[in-house]
């Protein structure tokens, strides 16, 4: 879990030619997404938050990403994907069923709520969903594999990797308009891109990253 890009913060470029006004606005909106659920009930939201925490764990040393709140916002704003598998209900209903299904599994395996389980026990339930092994009244026939793979997993990681914290952590250049890139070849870095630290170079790289 080493930091590959020490000192790199994509938000530092916010006022540079890599970000235009429209982009600043879009990212500001994202950073200020309400942390309280607006679509799911507090009870279901707690299950979602616990599941998201396992699917895409928060980085130890960068600002946290409100993954569950971003997913809830997608549901609240009814932002759809443009298609629905015939075996799946509409997205809000899919979450209601699937999250309850996780809770039911937690109750029957451990006699506790999903959100209160140890991480390893939560992982086990998520892994069962991924394999399509969860079933029961809460699911109402919705395949747990489909819910996990095509709903929860995609929504959670799409939220996380839409966040500047994730871009900084992975060394992604982030927004690039109007200024794009100049050095296109292998192993060439533009001065406004993240520098990667090889062992022993952390200090120099940190300096570079503080000047993107």
């Amino acid at each position, binding site marked *: 879990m080493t930091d590959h890009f020490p000192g790199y913060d994509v938000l530092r470029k916010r006022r540079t030619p890599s970000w235009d006004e*429209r982009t600043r606005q879009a990212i500001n909106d994202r950073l200020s997404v309400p942390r309280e659920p607006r679509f799911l009930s507090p009870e279901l939201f707690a299950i979602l938050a616990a599941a998201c925490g396992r*699917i895409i764990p928060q980085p130890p040393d960068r600002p946290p990403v409100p993954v569950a709140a971003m997913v809830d916002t997608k549901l609240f704003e009814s932002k759809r994907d443009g*298609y629905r598998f015939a075996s799946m209900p509409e997205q809000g209903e899919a979450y209601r069923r699937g999250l309850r299904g996780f809770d039911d599994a937690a109750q029957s395996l451990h006699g506790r709520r999903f959100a209160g389980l140890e991480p390893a026990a939560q992982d086990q339930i998520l892994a069962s969903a991924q394999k399509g092994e969860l079933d029961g009244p809460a699911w109402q026939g919705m395949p747990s594999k489909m819910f996990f793979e095509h709903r929860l997993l995609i929504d959670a*990681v799409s939220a996380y990797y839409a966040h500047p914290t994730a871009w900084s952590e992975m060394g992604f250049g982030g927004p690039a*308009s*109007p*200024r794009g890139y100049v050095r296109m070849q*292998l192993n060439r*870095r533009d001065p406004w891109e993240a520098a990667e630290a090889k062992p022993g170079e952390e200090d120099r790289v940190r300096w570079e990253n503080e000047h993107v």
Partner: protein
Amino acid sequence: MSDPLAAPRAIQGRAPDVFREGGWVEMREFSESEAVDFVVIGTGAGGGPLITRLAEQGFSVVGFDAGPYFRPLEDFASDETAQNQLYWLDERIVDGENPIRMGGNNSGKAVGGSTVHFAMVSLRFRPEWFKSRSLLGYGADWPLDWREMWDYYGKAERALSISGPVTYPWGPKRPRYPYRAHEMNGAAEVLARGAEAMGYKWSPTPLATVSAPRGDSPPCVYRGFCRFGCSTNAKQSQLVAFIPRALAAGAEIRDLAMVGRIETGADGRATGVHYFREGRWRFQRARNVVVAGYAIETPRLLLNSANDRYPDGLANSSGLVGRNLMTQSNQAVYGSMKDEVRWNKGPPSLSITEHWNYDDRKDFFGGYCWMAQGPLPIEWVTVLTGSLGLWGEQLRERMKNYNHQVGVKMVGEMLPNENNRVTLADETDQYGLRIPRITYSWGDNDKALVAHALDKMQTSMELAGVRDTFQQVDDTNHLAGTARMGSDPRSSVVNADCRSWDIPNLWVCDGSIFPTTGGVNPSLTISAIALRTADRIKALADRGEL
């Protein structure tokens, strides 16, 4: 700044000037009660050039699009998520053995259609594909001659200022591309290495983004967000390349205008379209109606327009409207390199090999090409979750290797099959219209082609020094079929002029008319056919045959 989705922008005699912040251009407006020569439904790869050329030839034309009229300089964020605004995200049900994922994967909803977010790859068909039944033994013949298409490809390439190499390594001679090829990025170079190691030719990809200034378009700045809308206007989408020409020639564009039904009269001919705009249903009279809504919305509209006279939908005496839907196989091989590739820089597909489109030594029908890749973070993470099933700490660690990833992705030909189709579901959408159900299953030939391609791509990546390779086995993109052209009314929906067999003043001019889909991206062929159709319409009009 106004919200492009809140209210139409092309009203009151003016439309947005896409090249100037806050600017406007004059737009002619037609009355609803007087029949215009042409109503065109959809303003994308097919509709855009058709509207333009019809207007330039003196016809009165109104182009409808359900999507908004974007101002790229102001409305396009440099961001994957925010740019979901470009896609057709209304509900569609997908089923079959291999359900097609829709949305951002294949359909746009905007003035300019899917070309606003397309990846700009602009390729010609291999000539034999226009006669694949008689020359290659599969699919169906097109009623078009490749030599005529070669001319129209040239016209489309000039209109779109395609940047490409001086000599293209495959197929019959073609003129040099109007603009010089783009510089290759690291990912494109790795494709070239892999191709050479296999003994294949490769080429910089012909792309619809300018490598030098053109009018109000500045050269591409290699930001790499092409699939999420080009905020600089370097990309030659229909919104930028054709629609401004259409307005200048006197066409009207109606944005945020969803056509729900085509009306027919006592004589069985189309009389106009019912459309929803500014909160109410309206009717535009027309002497001709052209459907250019792409391979899902086109058959949906024809089927939703069923009436007493045409109970199975319009133009559907063959029963083929909605059938023979084709997507293209879009599998990939990815891996890591020691080098920093930084594949997000520049347009995503800067190099290509069409080797297997032109080499017939294989035991299945159809061909494919592959291209360099540069997925942005969200697309990339969904590849990792979808192909490797990764999540948790493992996924986060893998994502940190983003700048070292590299890969190639195919565009492969899937064969037409009547059972792959678009039908109407009982559910309705926000306009009260029945939504489409899209049924798709791969055939044995499709699977054999994919297996061949994955094997070759994998070998080439390994020979190029790529490690930890893995395959993305389930992706598809691009759509075609569902209103195929042909020379027999019993086995096709439209003729070579894109005119429906059943209703002489009803036309289809978009990706739906493809009888086969070939092993290259479709838009240039769609646009070339649209240019041809406009010329044919003029010729028919001059002879009094409209």
